[in-house]
């Protein structure tokens, strides 16, 4: 199944693109997809356990993904 990875701020700069589509095994979890993201060029610098949002809501590492999910990797937030 295909999911969309969204990258922001320092993460988008590191990888060089703001989003990428990945083909992942059905039912893959957030942490499994993170491992695939880490294999992308430039993505080695991602921190060990980044915050992740699935479809605009924060999700735990074990959260199983569905086809078409939008998986955002959230750098440390700095609003305010």
């Amino acid at each position, binding site marked *: 199944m295909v999911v969309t990875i969204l990258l922001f701020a320092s993460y988008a700069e590191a990888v060089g693109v703001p989003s990428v589509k990945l083909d992942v095994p059905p039912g893959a979890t957030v942490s499994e997809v993170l491992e695939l993201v880490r294999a992308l060029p430039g993505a080695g610098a991602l921190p060990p356990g980044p915050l992740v949002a699935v479809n605009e*809501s924060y999700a735990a590492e074990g959260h199983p993904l569905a086809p078409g999910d939008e998986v955002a990797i959230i750098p440390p937030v700095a*609003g*305010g």
Partner: protein
Amino acid sequence: MRALLTREPIDSTALLERVAGRANGATVLFIGTVREVNEGRAVTGIEYSAYESMAQRELSAIVEDASARYGTPHVVVVHRLGELMLGEASVAVAVAHPRRAPAFDAARFVIEQLKKRVPIWKLEHYVDGTREWVNAGTAHR
């Protein structure tokens, strides 16, 4: 709309008007502004970006939560995006309430929650020409 992302300068007077109500005896406004110096480095400007759709949802959720927790519908928050100059407001929170203690507490709650969970990022430009993504874990305000 009680939670807003904007690329225009923040009008704090308009926010005060938005929360006014005849039952309210207390209004608290918080404004965050771009500082000249952050962590000892001279800042020339700042750029905010966001995961906008999610940031909007999170801001709205925080306002709802503050309203329920402190018992007033008169809670608004605006966060600026894009490039800001020194001294410009990056964020403003306004709360009005019949009593002052919950007005203070609700305003404080909104800004603390915003800094914890709203996906917004800050790129600082320094006098020496360098730039850096600010890590909230090391930033203070």
